[in-house]
């Protein structure tokens, strides 16, 4: 009797989920495997159909050691993402802290900060950057004057130049992360802070000892989300190269497939490094 019920439940459940299973096999699993096989082959699209010939690691060897442009672009993507993701996450956290203060009209700020998420597409950002809308007035002059490099060590000046140059990336790509942090902050119980305050903790201390440790899950989610968003955004130069390689008759689809897999693995590596870097601080609560 009970077993029959279990079985019926399982069948009903699968009747809801089967569309996902079918879709996963057809549109995710099979293409993933096929791209992997392509990446080890020379793939030619001919009139009769697709011709593949196994060539081993040749595509990867070409991509990593011979294709200077791809190598440089991936290295640049790796370094830049590794730097910008923590900055975006920290910025989103700071803004979420500010928005968590009970102020009249804070809903308006929320609306403003989230607006870019809705309107951001590759071409829109590109136009704004090309036409100079993405640079704050004054900053350009400051950078051009080179005053920054006179007054600061080179490392700091480099960092500041990078930050100012990519402020639109930092701000415009942090909308969802701000909301995620804010949702986490709003779940915190004010009674804990009151108790801490009575015990003599300053707001600074409560922040480090209470607020931050309870944001662990949110930090992980935001790191993952930010890496994905940065990686799949249309202006990512690596994506442009993959796209170009697809249409380039010299290389063929096999080469493009190898590029796609390298890019995917680099993205996972970035995610792994950032999550590992965030972990030690998290474990010692």
């Amino acid at each position, binding site marked *: 009797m009970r077993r029959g019920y279990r079985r019926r439940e399982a069948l*009903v459940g699968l*009747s809801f989920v089967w569309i*996902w299973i079918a879709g*996963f096999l057809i549109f995710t699993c099979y293409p993933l495997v096929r791209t992997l096989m392509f990446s080890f082959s020379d793939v030619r699209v001919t009139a009769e159909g697709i011709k593949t010939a196994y060539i081993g690691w040749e595509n990867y060897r070409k991509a990593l050691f011979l294709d200077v442009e791809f190598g440089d672009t991936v290295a640049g993507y790796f370094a830049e993402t590794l730097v910008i993701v923590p900055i975006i996450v920290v910025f989103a956290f700071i803004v979420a802290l500010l928005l968590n203060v009970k102020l009249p009209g804070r809903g308006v700020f929320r609306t*403003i900060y989230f607006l870019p998420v809705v309107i951001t597409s*590759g071409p829109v950002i590109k136009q704004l950057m090309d*036409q*100079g809308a993405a640079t704050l007035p004054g900053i350009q002059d400051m950078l051009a004057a080179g005053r920054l490099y006179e007054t600061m060590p080179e490392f700091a000046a480099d960092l500041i130049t990078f930050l100012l140059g990519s402020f639109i990336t930092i701000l415009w790509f942090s909308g969802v992360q701000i909301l995620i942090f804010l*949702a986490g902050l709003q779940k915190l119980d004010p009674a804990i802070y009151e108790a801490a305050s009575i015990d003599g903790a300053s707001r600074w201390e409560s922040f480090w000892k209470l607020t931050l440790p309870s944001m662990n899950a949110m930090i992980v989610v935001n790191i993952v989300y930010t890496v994905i968003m940065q990686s*799949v955004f249309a202006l990512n130069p690596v994506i442009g190269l993959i796209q170009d390689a697809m249409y380039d008759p010299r290389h063929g689809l096999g080469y493009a497939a190898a590029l796609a897999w390298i890019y995917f693995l680099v993205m996972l590596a970035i995610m792994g490094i950032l999550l590992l870097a965030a972990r030690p601080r998290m474990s010692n609560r």
Partner: protein
Amino acid sequence: MKFRLNPYALDRAKRILWGRTEEGVVYKLLVYFLLVLIGFVYLYPLFYMVTYSFMDTEDLINPLVTYIPSGFYLDNFAQAARVMDFFRTLGENLLVSFAPAIVQTAAAAVIGYGFARFRFPGRTVLFALALATIVIPPQVTMIPQFLMFRDLGLIGSIFSYLIPAALGQGLKSGLFILIFFQFFRSIPKALEEAAQIDGAGPYRIFAVISVPMAVPAFIISFLFSMVWYWNETLLAALYLGGNLSTLPLELQNFAASFQRMFAGDPNAQTGRNLNEAIHMAGTFLNIIPLLVIYFFTQRWFTESIERSGITGE
């Protein structure tokens, strides 16, 4: 007489101005100042875009005109609209964003409900896989998918968007499945059980009881899905194959289209050159539909995380 500060008064002043658990006046002002400052930087590119889009050629050259154009010069918009074939593109853009969004949301609701409500072998593994698909960039799967659609003759058709969406493999489908999973889990089971005792079958319960209770999840999923499909350019260029266009795609080819349209024009010297004002007008036209949608639905966006309960309880 020496003025001596009462220590209690000092403490009280500090509490009012800076605050202890509740934020004080000075603290709030400081936060307010920062919020306004950040908000300004957020919106600066849009201010720039709006003001430049109204400038005529003289305004662009005139060094005295930096932010406020001398008049509302609408020719930029007329030209940009012509270059992008605005109304036709807008119609197609609405189609290729609304249709996949509806299909994707419906599919995610069914799938999310299945994962949230029923136990079956392999459920945990399958659900983990569904979430893992979020991490897979479309670039890794798009070549075989493209070949598949080409063999089926679906390149250039909306179905190359709809079919994966209907099977829960659209843009970021895993995220939407997660939204519905969390939402259906947070709905108390008692109502469904009551209906079950009254003899309603599982599909009837889903349609009549669970779906109406999940309206917020439907709205949130639809809006995000719509916006992401709207702004998608890589897959749109590949799958829709120039047959269906979107505003972002037209903006991507803006300069080339403009040259094609006006290169042979004898007036090319007299202000018909592609300048930044026309670029900005094109960009503005591009995001106006989204701004309108955002204006009416902003709370669904900004409260999406809390309302969908995606962060878990």
